[in-house]
């Protein structure tokens, strides 16, 4: 194949971009969803309000905690040089958060006795993912998994140290 073949292929492809016969089609009918949305917009907003009111205290607290973490992550990472390894950035931030929580809850009794075993299991998962990332440091799926395991550890520490009245 030559460059001129490619140029021809590109020109032909772009020429056909708005030809209905050449356009991809959705795999399902999208109109019923559109019709429902334009006819029921006010109802759905009322529904979502009532759902929000019904949600429990723990769900609210979790949401606040998660959004705080995400916000703090954004600030933290925005201050770091962009070329730094994402695993190093994420791990450093997580360790700082984890230690802060452990110190904060240090003198407070936990609600379960086996939370440290659960934490160890999550730490083992963290190590396994980090080992995999050594071979493929930019792997987005592995980075997502690592972030999830970090989040689970923070959630666990928070959950077992919540006062009983918040465990709704």
């Amino acid at each position, binding site marked *: *194949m030559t*460059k001129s*073949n*490619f140029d021809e*292929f*590109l020109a*032909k*492809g*772009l020429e*056909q*971009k*708005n030809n*209905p016969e*050449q*356009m*991809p*089609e*959705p*795999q*399902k009918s*999208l*109109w019923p*969803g*559109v*019709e429902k*949305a*334009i006819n029921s917009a006010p109802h759905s907003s009322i529904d979502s309000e009532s759902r929000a009111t019904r949600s429990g205290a723990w769900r609210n607290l979790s949401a606040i905690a998660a959004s705080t973490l*995400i916000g703090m*992550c*954004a600030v*933290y*990472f*925005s201050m770091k040089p*962009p070329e730094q390894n*994402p695993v190093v*950035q*994420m791990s450093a931030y997580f360790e700082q958060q984890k230690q802060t929580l452990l110190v904060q809850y240090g003198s407070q009794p936990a609600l379960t006795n086996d939370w440290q075993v659960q934490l160890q299991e999550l730490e083992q998962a963290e190590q396994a993912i980090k080992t995999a990332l050594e071979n493929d440091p*930019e792997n*987005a799926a592995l*980075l*997502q998994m690592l*972030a999830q395991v970090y989040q689970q550890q923070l959630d666990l520490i928070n959950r077992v140290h919540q006062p009983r009245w918040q465990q709704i």
Partner: protein
Amino acid sequence: MLVDAQNAFADDTLDELVLRTQQGDQVAFAALYEQCHRRVYALCLRLLADQAHAEDACQEVFVQLWHKISQFNGQSRFTTWLHSVTSNIAISYLRKHKNWLQKVVSIENSGMDEAGIALCGDLNGLDKLILRLPERARLVFVLHAVEGYRHEEIATMLSMAVGSSKSQYHRAKKLLQEWYEND
């Protein structure tokens, strides 16, 4: 000069449908959807490279179209306006659906794999290759080469430097050529 009668007729019909939709006629809007949904979906798919997301974004475009069609003042062709609305909605959809990790460490989504492309049905050769492009290169290529935006406009739409838009375009072209020659 020859007149493209079929296109002229299609445009007239579309104009009528737009006018009736602006007056709140839902039947006309359904007909407008029938005429335009494939081009909207195609653009969403090219920009998002994900079938399910493209379907969601396509629905969002038509829902917003119903509410905002009064803003169309007829100064440009309706399809031009529709493409611009679709591009903006698809780009904001992409931003909304990035998870926190992608936002903070700027991980670029890779393009669609062969299996995903096969699920999208009958695609032409160029579309198959566009969907394989990594996110930034794909967005710039689609907006510049397919939709005709200038790099200055793309830079504003995607919050990137004009130079980055140009270099992503060349990156996209290079990848497309490489894949075309190797396939």
